[in-house]
């Protein structure tokens, strides 16, 4: 299974990147800092800890995905390790998928580390283990998977800085797609509006993976919505990876 070989090699390479541990340190600090933040508030302290904790995991994980992911493919091309690799009997899609799964595995580990700190802190405050927090974290992970795919896509054809910018834009647009919808409603019906609506459905809606509010406030989460979100994430990842493979296949490695 060549994809698996590339994935593990990518994992070994990514896990030794110092940036990961720097970000992990910041994430951990931020989660623990929520304890202090909670002291400033009037009212429910645990809610702040949960909110800030989940937000930290989400933010720093996304940064990890973007920073590592955009470097992954570009580094191989720039450092020319790609020459020895692609001269072997390896399909180009196997390379892309291998990089993707390797990075996902790395992020999974990082997420587990951050979650451990977070859940421990929550447990210390509530003396209760709350499994629904894990549900929110699981969907944060699906969001990571999508961001990783985007980072790999961009790094297939542009420099690390540009692809980091593109990926960051992807992340921001993904969380603000609702504002485009509000804007669209103000347009007069016509071809621009139709085009705008088509564009709107195509751009990613990362809020579909954001269940932090529901989980923290104990609100119900319909199983249908969870299932559709998961399916949405899967299809979107598939879409992006297919695009990445198409682009990567056509590349000349100068």
């Amino acid at each position, binding site marked *: 299974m*060549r994809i698996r*070989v*590339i994935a593990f*090699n990518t994992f*070994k*390479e990514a896990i*030794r990147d110092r940036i990961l541990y720097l970000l992990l340190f910041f994430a951990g600090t931020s989660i623990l800092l929520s304890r202090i933040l909670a002291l400033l508030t009037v009212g429910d302290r645990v809610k702040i800890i949960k909110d800030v904790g989940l937000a930290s995991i989400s933010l720093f994980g996304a940064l990890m995905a973007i920073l590592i992911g955009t470097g992954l493919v570009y580094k191989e091309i720039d*450092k*020319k*390790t*790609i*020459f*020895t690799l*692609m*001269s*072997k*009997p*390896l*399909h180009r899609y196997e390379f892309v998928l291998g990089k993707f799964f390797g990075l996902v595995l790395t992020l999974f580990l990082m997420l587990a580390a951050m979650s451990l700190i977070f859940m421990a802190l929550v447990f210390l405050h509530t003396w209760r283990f709350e499994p629904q927090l894990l549900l929110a974290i699981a969907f944060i992970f699906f969001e990571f998977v999508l961001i990783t795919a985007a980072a790999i896509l961009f790094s297939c054809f542009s420099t690390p800085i540009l692809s980091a910018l593109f990926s960051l834009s992807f992340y921001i647009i993904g969380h603000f797609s609702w504002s485009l919808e509000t804007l669209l409603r103000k347009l007069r019906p016509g071809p621009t509006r139709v085009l705008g609506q088509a564009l709107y459905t195509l751009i990613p809606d990362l809020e579909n993976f954001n269940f932090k509010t529901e989980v923290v406030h104990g609100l119900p989460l319909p199983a249908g919505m969870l299932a559709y979100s998961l399916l949405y994430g899967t299809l979107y990842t598939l879409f992006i990876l297919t695009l990445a493979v198409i682009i990567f296949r*056509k590349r*000349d*490695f*100068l």
Partner: protein
Amino acid sequence: MATVLKVDNVRKSFSLGLIPKKKEILKGISFEVAQGEIFGYLGPNGAGKTTTLKCVLGLIYPDAGTIELWGMPHLALKAKARVGFLPENPYFYDYLTGEEFLDFYGQLFSLSRTDRRERVAGLLKLVDMTRAAGLQLRKYSRGMLQRIGLAQALINNPSFVALDEPMGGLDPLGRKEFRDIIVRLRDEGKTVLLSSHILQDIEMICTRVAIVLEGRVVSQGALRDLISQKILFTEVEVAGLPESELHSFGDCLSASSGRTLLKIHREDLVDGALSHILSRRGKVLSLIPRTQTLEDLFVDIVKKE
């Protein structure tokens, strides 16, 4: 003799720069490499050697022309499984050790663990890197990287090995070792394509060559056929005789502490010169007939274009 690699009229252009200007790198490359030979692919920098090799290995897609390996399309995985490649200035994964690195490539060829271990150990011994196997690649010197690179090219026991400037940056001892390994590969029945601009190495081990100039193969054939065996001149190093006595035979190139280097252009004068030196109790320190070298041929060809 079976053909291992057949390159037929391959063309490639690149559009580079902000305002894409089309630059034609390969203008119709054609050559053949036969089974069991060491084939030299030479040309000056920028002629298109590396581009050709990258086309052969599927790293670049040619605009036109065909490339066949053992009669199969060159991109077929079956063909690629029997090929080994060492790129120019290789660079590898920093954080892997030499051993892990070779093991990784071994896994790509679906070798079993025992096979891999055996093969990796054997290759490390071949390139004399057994001691450094546990060191991370980022700590390797240039020479060490070339060696581990060669090992990686041989991990699948390929029938065809393509080497792009493999001896750049190696010291003379390293170059000799590399040459010996390449000859050994040929003796084992493998076919080697050696791309280089260092003519001495090519001249020493290659049987056939193709000379590339500005994207075209300008000369192709067995070295023996291309380079004339005619003696151009003979160099005789003489001691104990004054220069004035030797002028009639040829050019005196240098004179220091009683030694003179005499360059005799006419072959018939050589015997005469030797008998004169001996009769005058001079000493012949060395006698070297100089034939045309690959370098001479190369310079001639380049000057012609």
